[in-house]
């Protein structure tokens, strides 16, 4: 079952646009993400002053300047650390981490996986453009093998990370993917991420039209996208294609692609379960997109409930006070062995 989406009190007409000039390149996919975020935020029921955007460094990471909420543009790769402190200091805040593929998977890889395992209730939005944008076009940990970039004139020899797989193995409790060009889907996923209690990770395929234009062309062009993208829907079979006539199923752990003459919707195909207990299922899904010929799943790969870090932390604090009484400075000082000099 998916998480409930408690879109309760809509903040009445709050405007999340900030007064800063947006300084991305014209045509950058980041604009679409910003637009959806500004659209979604008023709908998630958290007033502006309780929203905090935290980012590292990169084109993506300029995002906080463009949202009129609290924000922190930190240093390269370290937004999860800062977010952890913020959320533990004030668990009531709605905390969003905005990061790029370099920021979160290169220099910041460790903080990201630790964030996931701790299951802090924050939302990570990873703008994956498979390139370092801000530093003008070096390859990133998601650039494909053989990719020619400024620092790989002979082609990259680093096998890319699969971010979905990585955060799954690190223990993320909500894992999803969406595409900059599919704004409706993106908005839906952002809302789901916001609603999820626990660490939500959203990979957004984002086009960098300056240094890596067209990285996702197959997934966004009308001629190809229907056969290249599989929309995950909880409780629904894994089907795709313009006519919904293509489907996936697993045989053991191997993937079978099926093509039929008619819609596959009511065929006997295994259905998608976001909350499948065994992580291996989502892991399997995460690898499908890497296989040539198979579609790239977008949507929610996994959504399960686990206690959040800040809940547990608050509980320990409360428990300690219950057990020992609220800390008393005088008592603290005279605890242990003391002696009196008259």
């Amino acid at each position, binding site marked *: 079952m998916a998480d409930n989406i408690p879109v309760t009190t809509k903040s009445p007409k709050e405007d999340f646009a900030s007064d800063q000039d947006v300084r991305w390149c014209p045509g950058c996919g980041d604009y679409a993400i910003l637009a959806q975020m500004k659209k979604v935020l008023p709908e998630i029921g958290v007033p502006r002053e309780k929203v905090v955007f935290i980012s590292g460094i990169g084109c993506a990471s300029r995002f906080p*300047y463009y949202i009129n909420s609290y924000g922190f543009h930190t*240093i390269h790769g370290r937004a999860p650390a800062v977010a952890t402190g913020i*959320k533990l*200091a004030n668990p009531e805040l709605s905390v969003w981490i905005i990061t790029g593929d370099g920021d979160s998977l290169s220099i910041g890889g460790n903080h990201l996986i630790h964030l996931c395992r701790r299951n802090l209730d924050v939302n990570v939005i990873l703008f994956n453009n498979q390139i370092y944008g801000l530093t003008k076009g070096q390859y990133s940990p998601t650039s494909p093998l053989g990719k020619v970039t400024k620092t790989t004139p002979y082609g990259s020899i680093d096998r890319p990370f699969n971010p979905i797989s990585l955060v799954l193995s690190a223990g993320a409790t909500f894992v999803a993917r969406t595409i900059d060009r599919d704004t409706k889907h993106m908005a839906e996923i952002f809302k789901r991420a916001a609603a999820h209690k626990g660490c939500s990770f959203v990979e957004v395929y984002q086009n960098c039209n300056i240094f890596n234009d067209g990285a996702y062309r197959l997934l966004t062009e009308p001629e190809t996208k229907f056969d290249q993208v599989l929309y995950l829907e909880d409780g629904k079979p894994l089907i795709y294609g313009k006519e919904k006539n293509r489907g996936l199923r697993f045989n053991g752990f191997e993937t079978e692609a099926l093509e039929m003459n008619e819609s596959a919707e009511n065929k006997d195909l295994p259905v998608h379960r976001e909350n499948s207990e065994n992580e291996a299922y989502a892991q399997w899904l995460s690898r499908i997109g890497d296989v040539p010929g198979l579609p790239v799943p977008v949507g929610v790969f996994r959504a399960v409930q686990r206690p959040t870090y800040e809940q547990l932390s608050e509980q320990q604090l409360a428990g300690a006070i219950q057990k020992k009484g*609220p800390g008393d400075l005088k008592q603290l*000082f005279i605890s242990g062995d*003391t002696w009196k000099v008259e």
Partner: protein
Amino acid sequence: MKNIQEVSRVTIRFAGDSGDGIQLTGNQFTRTTAIALNDLSTLPDYPAEIRAPAGTLYGVSGFQIQFSSQNIHTPGDEVDVLVAMNPAALQSGLKSLKKNGIIIINGDAFTERNLRMANFSENPLENGFLAGYQVYPVDITRLSRDALEKIELTHKEKDRCKNFFALGMVYWLYNRSMDATVEWIERKFSRQPIWAEANVLALKAGRNYAEATELFATSYRVPEAKIEPGIYRQITGNEALTFGLIAAAAKARRNIFYGSYPITPASDVLQYMASYKHFGIKTLQAEDEIAAIGAAIGASFAGDIGVTATSGPGLALKSEFLGLAVMTELPLVVMDIQRSGPSTGMPTKTEQADLLQGLFGRSGEAPIPAIAASSPADCFYAAYEAVRVAIRFMVPVLVFSDAYLANGAEPWKIPDTEGLPEIEIEFAKAGEDYAPYLRDPQTLARRWALPGTPGLEHRLGGLEKQDVTGNVSYDPDNHEKMVRLRAEKVQRVGEFVEEPEIYGDSRGEVLVVSWGSTYGTVLTAVEQLRKEGKSASFYHLRWVNPLPKKLETYIRRFRRVIVPEVNLGQLRRIIRSTYLVDAVGFNRMKGQPISVSELKQAIEALLEEKNNGR
């Protein structure tokens, strides 16, 4: 028929295998000494290994205490009494033993194997090697087993009591009451009465043995010292840091967020802090030092008091985030418990060589105020004051301690909580016209606005900030202005905090200037010199950045300035560049505190220069 001699100052060193309970023995002796109203100072000295194999030289665990009827400030350069539980303890302890000093030896441990491991080719008890000392070999192991004959413990278990036997002997030697220790044992082992009994038996047996055999011709008494009335406890530097933070948080009525990553010798602080959750302390054992300070900065942004602590290599990792803290002007406390470097160095040993790293180890012009604790108990006040300044000035503050202070303990007069200086915070208020980088004209602090407050939404970051608005700015003149404002703000801290007083005359021949944990040593050296009528005074820094105004005045009033440090001259460099004074250094890099006598010699050499025509 006891021949009691009065002495004013004694240094004892207990040493043995790390399994021998040396630290415990030392702590008991310390407590008893404190209750007997002697002033005292202690120095534990652990092996680098977790469980070093028994008998090895590198596995020796030591505990040194100096106690006196006068005020004392160091655990002593030279040892009067060495208690050596095995040959390795003897071998490593001899270096610092006084001529004609007393050695109490556990003769049972002088087996061939142990001798070999301790690099003795022959038994030093037999070949005259120890001539010139008063040697008391006692079969401590056997005697304590004998004393515990009736107790139902195995031999091996009984041997764990032998440290109390040794302690009993030493108690006799210094005419100490055993009550405090007996009471402690009984409390500690209240659930294991057999162990309580065994330990008490061993303790008494040791004392009785010394008495009955008239082992020592003379015993000693150290008269009471004049000690300020009050309630006291032993406190280590790391405990004191913890207490200081907790006290400051209580006074400021904010929570502490303590993010850290374990590293010797700072790990204790995280451990202590984690046990005080009922004080509203949140601790995070982060994935590394970088995340630890990052989380602390985040917590400060959200309204907690962000604190992190580490040692040198960890401070290096925090450098980049420290730059962000400077730029975003958030309150933050970063404590560096220095250890011997460079690199991994000698991680369990002390040193003062992170000063320049702390002051300058960041890209760009990123000044940070820094305070240094001067003794274990002073760590309390240093941490407290760091929080006060961090909040008042909206700055990151560095606190320097070191392995010597961290593990060392001294009696701490428990302060009156009401007497601690107030810590007030004035947050920006909902609805006010908030400019994130508008400054208080006096402190130059910007105002703290908490996420969650309607109307104060703003964005911080590491890009250069426009004055007042805090927007990103690449304007050349703005940058120049902001760089200078940040520097000026740090200088203003100097007007807020109290400047230390000089010890001794305020003009004269030689001024000794120091910082941090050398305090006790320098004070002792200068005290002694002054008693000898020499013209030496002492100025000990509390804030190493900014420097106190008075320092210049004093420097100009002395013919010579000397700066003793456990580094190659880091403070000295700053003093020379700031005051253009030909300050000389006294520098020792041995992973140990500097010694009083060596320092005295160095100062004396300066004093004598004049006669030699300088």
